[in-house]
């Protein structure tokens, strides 16, 4: 079974991200694999282990530097990695990303399962998995906390606001995973060595045989959120009851209840 893990490279979550002259900047902070996508790689590797003869391919759209994120996936245990990179993709929106990913998945061929993280840390929309499924015409199993393949169907436990829902679909499917899938494994020493030597092919739009998708959603403006000026007021008292009394009065005075 051929499994694809779709990943993205984003600024580290500790980065001081800011809007600066109409651009997003993050200073010297490193670019890393999107933390949600580590769960995608973990979920894909679990399925490889559970289904004999399976392979995992990590797939990413991004600049040449995004190969570092793909190397992370290889070091975790992915068998191969592919980068889709083209200057014409600089203004890519989510629908566009779904179309490009779907083309790459079709070019890879013979794919049974595509695994995404729940969302990316940068855009945060979380809609590319469903859009990729729609473009491919495959079933979409979103927000999976557990995945099981049986008799040509994929069964997942979906984690939604109201609880857990058991959902299934016939292969091939697109799955997005949440944290309950399990803690992403650390890259092994052998994995890191393999990844450092790996030859990662780069596909352009012409390799995929498609034009750049039209950009439907355009960024008009960027701003920094207003600084939160908090000076904490520490509530003290001789007993927990005295502290509670003062604190409850303060909270009630805020009129938020």
């Amino acid at each position, binding site marked *: 079974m051929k499994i694809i893990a779709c990943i993205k490279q984003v600024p580290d979550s500790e980065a*001081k991200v800011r809007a600066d002259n109409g651009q*997003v900047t993050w200073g010297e902070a490193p670019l890393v694999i999107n933390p949600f996508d580590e769960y995608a790689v973990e979920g894909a590797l679990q399925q490889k282990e559970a289904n004999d003869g399976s392979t995992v391919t990590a797939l990413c759209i991004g600049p040449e530097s995004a190969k570092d994120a793909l190397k992370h996936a290889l070091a975790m245990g992915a068998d191969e990695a592919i980068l889709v990179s083209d200057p014409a993709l600089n203004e890519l929106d*989510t629908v566009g990303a779904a179309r490009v990913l779907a083309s790459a998945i079709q070019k890879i061929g013979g794919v049974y399962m595509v695994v995404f993280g729940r969302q990316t840390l940068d855009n*945060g929309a979380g809609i590319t998995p469903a859009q990729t*499924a729609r473009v491919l015409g495959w*079933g979409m199993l*979103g927000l999976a906390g557990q995945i099981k393949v049986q008799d040509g169907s994929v069964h997942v436990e979906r984690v939604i606001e*109201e609880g857990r829902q*058991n959902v299934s679909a016939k292969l091939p499917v697109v799955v997005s995973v949440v944290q309950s899938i399990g803690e992403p494994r650390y890259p092994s020493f052998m994995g890191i060595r393999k990844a450092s030597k790996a030859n990662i092919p780069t596909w352009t739009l012409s390799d995929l045989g498609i034009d750049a998708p039209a950009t439907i959603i355009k960024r008009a403006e960027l701003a920094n959120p207003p600084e939160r000026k908090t000076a904490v007021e520490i509530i003290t008292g001789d007993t927990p009851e005295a502290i509670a009394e003062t604190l409850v009065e303060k909270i009630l005075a805020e009129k938020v209840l």
Partner: protein
Amino acid sequence: MKTLVYIDHFKGEVQPASWEALGLGKSLGSVSAVVFGVNVDAIAKAAFEHGADEVFVANDPSLEDYRAEPYASTLSALASSSTPDLILFPTTARTRELAAMSAVDLSTGVLTDITGLEKNGDSLIATRPIYEGKVMEKSICSGKPVMATIRPRAFPKPEPDSSKSGTATKVEVKSDALTTVEGYAQSESAVNLGDAGVIVSGGRGVSNNPSLVPPAGMDEKEAEIWRAHQGFTLIGELANVLNGAVGASRAAVDGGYIPYSHQVGQTGKVVTPDLYIACGISGAIQHLVGMRNAKVIVAINKDADAPIFTQARYGVVGDLFKIVPALTTEFKKKLGK
């Protein structure tokens, strides 16, 4: 401007942000609502009461459980025939998928989790947080209809007017499901943090009550989880008095103290309650990004240097096992419960 609002519900329980979306649509011009499911007459009635000029209903057994494909196909067909300028959704796990797929069908785009929407001539400019809220983006969707999911509690909720009513219009249903719903395990993990006005959260500190003696025969890990459950029971009692929800930090979820659906933060849920009470949470950046837009933040922690205090309006340096029950008692008294 013609707006269509998707009323999201789970087994008849409407996501309150659906009404907020209806109010937003109304402020821009005429607004229709659409409801999917079985026996949804009461929801259609509520949609009229919340300001819908017209309500579309797709009442069909095949739509009893939410499934992305038939819902998206039915919505896309309705949008093609009723030609709204804008389709609004409350942001939920379901609508992110549904809007995403419908946007592919309609060759348009979706702006997710928006916190603002302004008219600028003929176009709409949506505000949405990106990079975990570190930056605010204003975006324009050049496709038609414009599609957007709104962040719960970001827009005012219209007051229902029970004198308003109307006759719902039937919608043709598309049944092209690729997925099967096998069942629910609606468990103790069911929690809707997005809509909660008050959230009381626990962190690693909930397991640190040395005065609790776990039952004999537990190993160290079991004893830790047992202690944590005692801590979360106190937190749950406080949340109850405040009609709030129970949240948790990643450390508490990773520790096995509470299910993932309670997690607030970067890999959990981003929340915007009016009141957030953080108990035994140190305040890792991943947690802070998930809760820092709460109106009033209260932190209770033993460690006076914990980063959570940099975000809090009020702080208590102390033992949550003593402070939280005292707060519950005091709130009960003051709120007359």
